[in-house]
């Protein structure tokens, strides 16, 4: 039974966020301790608190921690971007990639692999590709003066299809030894991950900005006109949403390639179980997305170790049954 008074609801929201934060912490500990070299909890504590140089310390600080933090940030960015995109387009099928941001980034990244450029150039080119897409879709959807979600969605979907064609072309003309790297990038892969310094800054700024828009977002669910009638300046809000979601996606894709499914499914799972209030939904999506991707990545690198799986495979393997289960159990309507 959902508590009926506003104050109970607020306490409930805090509790959910706290639980999700704990889950994130738990998966972080799990990620740092598990792998080809098992590290016990007490060893982990020592490694973190003392300044020693041992094999365990190197493994934790140089390999596992950057990768784990990247997973948290990327997962959080994707889930948050997915949630924003679903409100902007008012479409339950929207995900962070629906408007072609990942397609633009992929073309940039694959181009770098083909040219044999280093990982820095690859990230830079992926980000440039994402930004080109952002401006292209925005400009094209805008051209006639009217700017409806449907128009934006169609423009983005068709642009994404265009990128898809370019990607297929690049895959078919590239050499065999480059193909594995390309396919891993396209499926999403955290093995190149570095400490997400500037990316976590992007994430925190976007989270705070979108959280500040949470109540207007609730109104947007009931249509642009209804939001307008209740005093929301709809057009600036839509542009803001588009920029925030695109920036988050671009940043996530730059770090880890196009990890699928997470951005579509996490917001839905939370909506079905926690309700549609974005003041809870936005931070909850970020926490749950981060937690889920970190768990998936830990599995991806331990399941058939020393071989690694692309994490995108695991997110789909976990996400599909969880989503279907929640959908079956939920007594909330989806559309």
């Amino acid at each position, binding site marked *: 039974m959902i508590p*009926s008074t*506003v104050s109970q609801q607020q306490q409930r929201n805090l509790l959910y966020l706290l639980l999700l934060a704990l889950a994130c912490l738990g998966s972080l500990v799990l990620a740092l301790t598990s792998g080809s070299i098992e590290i016990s909890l007490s060893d982990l504590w020592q490694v973190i608190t003392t300044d020693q140089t041992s094999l365990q310390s190197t493994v934790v600080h140089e390999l596992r921690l950057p990768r784990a933090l990247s997973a948290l940030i990327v997962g959080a960015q994707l889930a948050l971007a997915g949630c924003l995109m*679903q409100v902007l387009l008012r479409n339950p099928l929207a995900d962070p990639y629906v408007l072609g941001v990942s397609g633009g980034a992929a073309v940039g990244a694959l181009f770098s692999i083909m040219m044999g450029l280093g990982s820095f150039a690859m990230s830079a080119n992926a980000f440039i590709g994402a930004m080109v897409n952002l401006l292209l879709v925005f400009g094209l959807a805008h051209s006639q003066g009217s700017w409806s979600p449907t128009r934006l969605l169609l423009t983005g979907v068709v642009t994404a299809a265009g990128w898809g064609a370019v990607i297929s072309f690049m895959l078919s003309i590239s050499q065999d030894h480059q193909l594995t790297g390309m396919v891993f990038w396209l499926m999403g892969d955290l093995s190149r991950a570095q400490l997400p310094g500037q990316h976590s800054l992007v994430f925190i700024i976007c989270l705070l900005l979108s959280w500040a828009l949470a109540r207007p977002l609730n109104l947007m669910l009931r249509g642009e006109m209804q939001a307008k*009638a209740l*005093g929301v300046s709809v057009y600036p809000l839509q542009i803001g949403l588009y920029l925030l979601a695109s920036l988050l996606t671009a940043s996530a894709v730059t770090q880890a390639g196009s990890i699928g499914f997470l951005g579509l499914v996490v917001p839905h799972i939370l909506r079905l179980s926690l309700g*549609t*209030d974005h003041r809870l939904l936005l931070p909850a999506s970020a926490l749950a997305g981060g937690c889920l991707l970190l768990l998936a990545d830990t599995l991806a690198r331990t399941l058939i170790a020393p071989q690694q799986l692309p994490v995108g495979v695991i997110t789909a393997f976990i996400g599909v049954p969880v989503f279907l289960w929640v959908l079956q159990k939920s007594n909330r309507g989806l*559309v």
Partner: protein
Amino acid sequence: MSLTNNGDKSGSASTINDAIETTPKVLLAAQQLGVKIAGKTICQNLDLELKAGEIWGVLGGNGAGKTTLLHTLAGFREPDQGQVLIEQTPIKQIKAKHRAQKLGFLLQDEKNAFPATVLETALQGRHPHLGHWQWESIEDEKIALKALEQVGLSDYTERTLDRLSGGERQRLKIATLLVQDPKIWLLDEPANHLDLHHQISLLTLLKEQTKQQQGCLLMSLHDLNLAWRFCDKLIFIYPDDCTREHKVEQGDKAALLQAEKLQHLYQHPIHCLDTAQGKVFIAG
């Protein structure tokens, strides 16, 4: 469950008397308003004054432009000529949020991408009154619960919108407006989807609210009997092919609700009968 507001009747009577002694304030005004949609003129040089305590109706056939006129008066779309004023301030100069504190709008259709609960939806009416980071308080919740009681949805607070019937959703929209508590009410076909009982009880509630709080209300209607019963003044939007001199006519309901004018308005014969229960309109 009380559907009509049985509040302090004597209190409301005295406020009305006070208002009659002083000239009622103009809350919403249109000056030389010209509205076109898709090349079709809906009105030209329209001057309109909605004063405190007045209830207006907009009547016209399908596609005459009732909704477009209401949207223009609410500031949702720019007029092609002239301007709309809320308490003497041009509506263009008023921030969306401040406008929503004064002017409430009942939309004809509504979309729900991800349905919220009935209580959450009613609470959304508080949006224009809350600060940026502010949460709804216990007071806001009381206001919302009272509005839900007034429209007869008290038992459905935790239900999601996709599980409501068309009429229940319409009542919820009216409840959200009651929670928003504006001075100026613009309602686009408020009687839509409502059964007879709820048409009468909710329009009575809105009428009493308008008279008591000295607000003003403008609604588009298709039912002449409701227009006769609830409105003080009317706006007729005649069809294009009509040979009348003015496309838009406004005035007291008694002057406008005449068989000959209604025939022009709907391009259909309409009979007015005087019965023991009052005037009744029947389509021929």
